[in-house]
């Protein structure tokens, strides 16, 4: 070997690396029994369990399973994004996976593209599963027409905001285990005060105000507009679905999350 040899500086195309990362992330998720059970199956168990136990009459011919579809899909999306990202990225940071990747020429963007692909796949799988169970077991009414479009953008925007927040939480956590202990109660409390498990108008007013600061409430509200007849919009705090505010708040959380990610993200546990 001579020093005159040309330096090798070629890099593979970004698209190819992103595809690789997406494949890696899908395999990592779907081959791990715990993550599949807790993220994918848990919302289904919630739907079956609570659907069998709780019996509200919400008026306008809406029973609890029909009302709960929006809530349980919210829980599914939060599980696939916020909880999944917080726990697994913290785990990858603790066990050296991130540090190892950081020592390769893999672009950081490809890593995050892989994570987005994972969240999308898991969220879509969860939603399809929940809709199937909802229709087959409870005969819930599927959305129609323009509601599908609302369903799509609310889900995507909500998942994006929660994914970014999950990445931020993963960095705040000390390690993988503490991430799980931190984010699970956070997610449950947010879901509880956001009307996921019960009609939102039964949540005390001050808690409604607290919930309105966070994205989960707006995700759930947007999804209620998809699964509930417009007559029930009257039971929302503003007396309407407020889809414009849903888009605005979720969008703001995306921006805030992106900034926080860029500022706080670390590839290894703290030096020292």
């Amino acid at each position, binding site marked *: *070997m001579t*020093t005159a040899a040309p*330096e*090798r*500086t*070629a*890099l*593979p195309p970004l698209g*190819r*690396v992103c595809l*690789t*990362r997406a*494949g*890696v992330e899908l*395999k*990592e998720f779907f*081959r*791990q029994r715990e993550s599949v059970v807790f993220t994918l199956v848990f919302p289904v168990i919630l739907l079956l369990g609570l659907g069998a136990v709780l019996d509200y009459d919400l008026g306008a011919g809406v029973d609890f399973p029909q009302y709960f579809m929006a809530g349980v899909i919210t829980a599914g999306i939060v599980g696939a994004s916020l909880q999944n990202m917080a726990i697994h990225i913290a*785990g*990858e940071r*603790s*066990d*050296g*996976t991130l*540090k*190892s990747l*950081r*020592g*390769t*020429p*893999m*672009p950081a963007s490809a890593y995050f593209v892989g994570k987005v692909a994972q969240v999308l796949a898991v969220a879509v799988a969860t939603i399809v599963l929940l809709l199937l169970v909802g229709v087959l077991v409870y005969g819930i009414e599927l959305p129609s027409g323009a509601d599908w479009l609302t369903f799509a953008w609310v889900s995507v925007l909500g998942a994006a905001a929660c994914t970014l927040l999950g990445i931020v939480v993963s960095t705040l956590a000390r390690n993988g285990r503490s991430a799980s202990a931190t984010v699970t109660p956070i997610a449950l409390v947010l879901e509880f005060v956001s009307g996921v498990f019960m009609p939102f108008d039964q949540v005390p007013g001050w808690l409604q105000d607290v919930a309105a600061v966070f994205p989960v409430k707006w995700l759930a509200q947007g999804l209620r507009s998809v699964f509930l007849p417009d007559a029930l919009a009257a039971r929302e705090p503003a007396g309407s679905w407020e889809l414009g505010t849903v888009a605005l708040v979720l969008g703001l959380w995306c921006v805030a999350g992106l900034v926080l990610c860029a500022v706080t993200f670390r590839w*290894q546990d703290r*030096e*020292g």
Partner: protein
Amino acid sequence: MGALTPAGRGHCVLVQKDSLLPTTRKLAAGPGREPDPDAAISVRGLVKRYGDRAAVDGLDLDIRRGEIFALLGPNGAGKTTTVEVLEGYRKRDGGDVRVLGVDPARGGRRWKAQLGIVLQSGAGDSQLSVRELLKARASYYAEARDPDEVLELVGLTDKAGARGRTLSGGQRRRLDVALGIVGRPRLLFLDEPTTGFDPEARRQFWALIRSLRDLGTTMLLTTHYLDEAEALADRVGVLARGQLAEVAVPAALGGRGTAPAVVRWTEDGVRRTAETATPTAFVRELAARFPGEVPDLTVARPTLEDVYLKMIGDNS
């Protein structure tokens, strides 16, 4: 060198002076001031502090291209800190560092594409198979090695389909090395690569390292095993208290090559010891005193371990 030019900016007379200065400095400096841009690794006055404790305190180091360099030192001497500064993982507090001609603090993806890094901690758990992990890693490089060839090289072909978590400790470490070399690095960092290996696995690993050397890979190895450093390294450096106590070929470290030999034998039922600079003459003389074999005769030079322990004892 750039530090000199601003003084002469705009002055014709000084420009002429400037053009002479770098050469003069380089000659005068020897292994001193400026990092050597042709070296694989060149370090001048590296300082890294944690709080008010300096883990690395003014370290100078040059590693030639194609060389295997072993960095030895007790725990806490600054080995991993030094290596992680070179790899670009840690920021330094002072000094000048060039790795393949680039400052690691500014090393981009094209620079990283030329490195292979085997971390002390290894890579994390994965649901992917050994071959899938290697193929994924290979895809981050434009000119990667064939994953199956790499598996053959590290002796993991039988385990290609196994998930990472089902491997034994030694197999995991070989997987770490495989991941480190699949990108065809010019420079390979190996941080305590054989910790937890049984003796046979270590011999196999050494053979792997030698075959990589034959392919022209420069290697910086940190290890606790002195026999490993002696078997593999072209030169060894001993770190103590954040500085290089000595750099030498293994056979000459600590004056080993010229140190007095220790001759031991038994005479009149008593164990005798003598230090001598001329062991051959001494043994010839000894042989003449005995009718047959000299009882329990041994002739020894200090082992690498002897001189190493003495050096770190002196320094810490």
